[in-house]
């Protein structure tokens, strides 16, 4: 779309983009594994998810360093600056998602160790909501790669359903705890897991906002350059 005089700069930007998607892929896999492990009997999978979170953290550090490096060396402006700012925000959100996934895995370990009590249905429901969130995460990363503001907007709307499901799960569990105080400890663990899933939905929404930011930035650029065709296409 646009090229810099310094080819190296383009290569560096591409490299950052590639690393973000790689990190996103890892986070997606972590989330998928956590959802499989939740309420299941695969203790090894749970431990694997917890152990692999260090890899996510490592990637955050290295992408952040790369961003700082570009800002210092190239003093990017306009679209490039927006892109790098958005990328560094996306990295933070991805890392937080990684943390929430780790919390889910730890919760899954607790459920596994204590037996589920009577909360089987809620765990199943969380898994169901989790699958929806996972789809959102997948789609938002696709939207980032495709710089697709429409898709990002659709994801922001989907997050509302996740929030509603979370409230419904909490309501059910509160009823549970009132009926039988012995379930309080298990129910709380499950609420924390549900909370993590809901937080992942929120972080996904943040990423979607950053994608729109990047896309709209390009829009402006195209008008400045007078690329009418592109402008009309993007304006929809």
């Amino acid at each position, binding site marked *: 779309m646009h090229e810099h005089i310094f080819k190296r700069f383009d290569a560096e930007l591409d490299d950052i*983009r*590639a690393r973000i*998607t*790689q990190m*996103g*892929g*890892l986070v*997606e*896999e972590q989330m*998928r594994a956590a959802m499989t492990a939740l309420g299941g*009997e695969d203790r090894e999978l749970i431990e694997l998810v917890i152990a692999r979170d260090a890899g996510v953290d490592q990637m955050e550090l290295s992408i952040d360093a790369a961003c700082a490096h570009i800002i210092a060396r190239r003093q990017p402006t306009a679209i490039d600056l927006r892109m790098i700012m958005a990328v560094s925000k996306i990295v933070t959100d991805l890392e937080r998602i990684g943390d929430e996934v780790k919390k889910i895995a730890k919760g899954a370990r607790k459920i596994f160790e204590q037996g589920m009590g009577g909360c*089987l*249905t809620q765990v*199943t*429901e969380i*898994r*169901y909501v989790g*699958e929806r969130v*996972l*789809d959102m995460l*997948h789609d938002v*990363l*696709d939207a980032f*790669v*495709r710089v*697709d503001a429409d898709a990002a907007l659709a994801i922001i709307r989907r997050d509302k359903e996740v929030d509603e499901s979370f409230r419904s799960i909490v309501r*059910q569990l509160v009823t549970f705890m009132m009926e039988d105080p012995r379930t309080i400890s298990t129910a709380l663990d499950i609420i924390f897991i549900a909370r993590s899933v809901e937080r992942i939905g929120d972080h996904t929404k943040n990423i979607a906002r950053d994608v729109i930011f990047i896309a709209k930035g390009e829009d402006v650029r195209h008008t400045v350059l007078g690329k009418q065709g592109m402008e009309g296409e993007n304006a929809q």
Partner: protein
Amino acid sequence: MNAAALALLLLALAGALAIALALQIRQRNALRDWLIAPDLHPLPDGRGVWYEIFSRLRKTRKQEQLRRAELGNALERFRLAVQSLPEGVMLLDTQMHIEWLNDAACRQFALDAVRDPGTLAVQLIRQSEFRQLIDSYRARPVKQSTLLRAGSNGEERVLSVTLLPFAATGTLLVATDVTEQVRSELGQRDFIANVSHELRTPLTVITGFLEQFNGDDPPTGEMARRFHRLMAEQAERMNRLIADLLTLSSLESSGQPPRDEVIDVPALLETLRNEALALSAGRHAIDITDSSAGKLRGSADELRSAFGNLVFNAVRYTPAGGKITMAWRLIDGQPTFAVTDTGIGIPPEHIPRLTERFYRVDKGRSTAVGGTGLGLAIVKHVLVRHGGMLKIDSVPGKGSIFTVALPADRRA
């Protein structure tokens, strides 16, 4: 006089020359225009040597157009063939950007044929296995494959993805959906593992108690009676399991069920209700709301086993205080049996696999409530033999409806 005639002749000659020249220039211009845009400026007929040149040119062009059309057709047919392959096909360039992909690949990886070409494949297919495959292929560009999990909305597919060199610098990606194969291979392996496991568990308990009796201080009195009871329970469990296995195997090997045998289904439902009440021991309300579909032709033993399994499952998976209803009525002319419960329900992702042998939504729970893991497999087999269909509707936490629809011509 002579000079005047000469001048006239010269003038006529000059006129003729001018006309000939104009003609030549016109035809030359026509040729030039044709060379620039052959479709907009067709060649005139031409005169003299031009006629010869123009007709040759027209002929050559026509032949060339024909050849091009043929080539285009062949190419288009080839493209359509690749497009409609059930395998996903993708062309990648040296940097592993997507160049072109067919419909199947779009579906398999949730890609967009218009927008996504030009993007790095690893950015859209983010599984780490795929990244590893690409890395290893770039290090050594020979045919390489890997298995990949893909899919969304809770539907997971397993893809076998192969990369191979193509033309001079390109890479061809071929993706085959192997979900069913992986599943059935796992199923086979699981079945044997499951049978062994299911048989060994009760045996371990029995052997354990027997060792107690063999020891220096054999149990007596109350303790002996308790051990006895536990051993008998486990033996009974093995009995049930083996009976179910035998039922399954006989269902698989025998021919079509008889049509002359008439089953009094309403009476059968009454019997099942009494048996279910006994199993429930007062924990559930069990009712028959409708038995208007009357009698049925088929195998009494098999249908009794199929309907029974559905009703007893409802009792097992419904918490105390729940309600179970049976209904036997005609729906669109088809005799239909439905069992509705207010039980724990089944998460949607498990429903398609419920009729697999030993498939369990929750392993711990199923054995605890006394299931063998073969009940729904038996139901499915019986229905297949009677030409019926099993439908499962369920909402986790709310309850399930198991519906059996039998063909209309089986009514008696």
